[in-house]
């Protein structure tokens, strides 16, 4: 309700709000993050349950997309095998920036029950993708995935766009100076 409170400003600025463009962009991004509809293993069933009527993921502004080009984040729901890891990386590379990854379940986090003898299982999806939120459990309860989703939205809201660009430029400059 922060926005409405500011509109009822006693100073009488007639609907003029003070804020940064970054805040506005982050607010918009965090409230309509579309995800890639991509089930891998057992966790995908719990993921479907989160989508369905009882837990209703759409109330967070998350809409399933079938194409990686329309998605903001991907939920790695299940075991990633070595054969699948190659495809998964390619799907991730097709997504447009800014993009985020939620690793759902023990298998995606670390290999889970297949850690010891799973000769064909990737021991943690963070070996190929940068993971933003880890959701533990085998499989995680739907409430746990919702918690992970809220954490991701918090992370998106703290995103720095212009400041980061500025900082990166300085760092790049420093690097270039060092090389010379």
């Amino acid at each position, binding site marked *: 309700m922060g926005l409405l409170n500011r509109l009822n400003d006693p100073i009488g600025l007639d609907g003029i709000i003070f804020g940064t463009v970054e805040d506005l962009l982050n607010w918009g991004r965090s409230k309509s993050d579309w995800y890639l*509809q*991509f*089930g*891998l*293993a*057992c966790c*995908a*069933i*719990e993921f*479907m*349950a989160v989508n*369905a*009527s*009882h837990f209703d993921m759409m109330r967070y502004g998350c809409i399933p997309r*079938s194409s*990686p080009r329309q998605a903001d984040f991907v939920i790695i729901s*299940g*075991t990633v*095998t070595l*054969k*699948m890891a190659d*495809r998964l990386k390619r*799907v991730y590379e097709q997504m447009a920036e800014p993009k985020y990854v939620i690793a759902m379940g023990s298998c995606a986090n670390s290999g889970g*029950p*297949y850690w*010891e*003898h*799973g*000769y*064909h*299982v990737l021991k943690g999806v963070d070996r190929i993708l940068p993971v933003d939120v880890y959701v533990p459990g*085998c*499989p995680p*309860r739907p409430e746990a995935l919702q918690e992970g989703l809220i954490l991701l939205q918090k992370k998106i809201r703290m995103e720095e766009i212009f400041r980061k660009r500025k900082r990166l430029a300085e760092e790049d400059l420093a690097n270039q100076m060092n090389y010379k």
Partner: protein
Amino acid sequence: MSEKKYIDIEFSQLDSERMRLFMGPQHPSTHGVLQLEVELDGEIVTDLIPHIGYLHRCFEKHAENMTYPQIIPYIDRLDYISSMNNELPYVMGLEKMLDIQVSEKVEYIRVIFSELNRIANHQIAIATFGLDSGAFTPFLYYFRDREMILTIFEKASGGRLLYNYFWVGGLAADVHPTFKEDITEAIRIIRDTNAEILNLLLKNKIFIDRTANVGILPADIAISYGVTGPILRASGIPLDLRKAEPYSIYERFDFDIPVGNGEVGTVGDCWDRNIVRFREMEESCKIIEQALKTFPSQGDVRENVPKRIRLPKGEIYCKAENPKGELGFYIISDGKDKPERVKVRAPSFVNLSALPEMSRGYMFADLVMILGSVDIVLGEVDR
């Protein structure tokens, strides 16, 4: 003046250039990570090769390195939609080899939970098939009801999806006090929703147009491929292991085997496969009701659980009727506390092998429907 020449062309014999299209593994309607290599003539499927192995999780390697009770959680993860049904043949096989007699109460709980899980599985099967055909509402209705079944499982075993509940010689824990009332209430609501879904989805004109006469699997081809479960029964063959070779206490209950009879199309089409699953849910409700009437509430469910399991030398094949077909475990023991080999006869894998036969000659858009009606779980196909 030139004469007009009429040339007879048989368009069906004109051969056009074939196109090879890859569908999956990232595709919303492949039900997991399956890749289909489809050969197309225009829009007609001429050949199809399923490429599997995207979810190969090394089950047999794990089984060689684990003790017998430690394998049960991995069996849960084979067909992760119907975990209770998966555990049943494994523990029955071990009990037969160890010569353990389980108590009446354990048998009753096993049958009740297996049938409840069969309902949950068929709910997902019909719900996702509805999604494939463009109907979103049955998905929401069925998942709402499925939560009730999962709550009952959670109260008994502690897990929502993967249970580790059936142990060798008994169960992990006793059922909760409100077990009977919960299930009675669940069955009442399941029946209500099913009555609604029948009119909403299965008798819907659009749905019938989409699924009738599509993906026909004749009975002889089904038998030659070794297809089991609802797909075989939809082709008109009433083979159900619960009746044909009764295990546990299934011979005490009175239930029918629904078969496909081509009500709206041909025997063995996509619609028949779904109506067989739909009617099986009602039969499962009947079994559960009969079991609840004679349910013995006294007794300890863990009195026969052995402290340490060491099998005698030998081998056994034990099978049971999974929601997807005949699930069998072939266990070879060399007298140690770990098995030498555990081979799984997975129904999804065998049923998937008949997919090229089902889909040849149909439109590419129908392929999604045919694949959905087979109801595969990739965890069981690849193992």
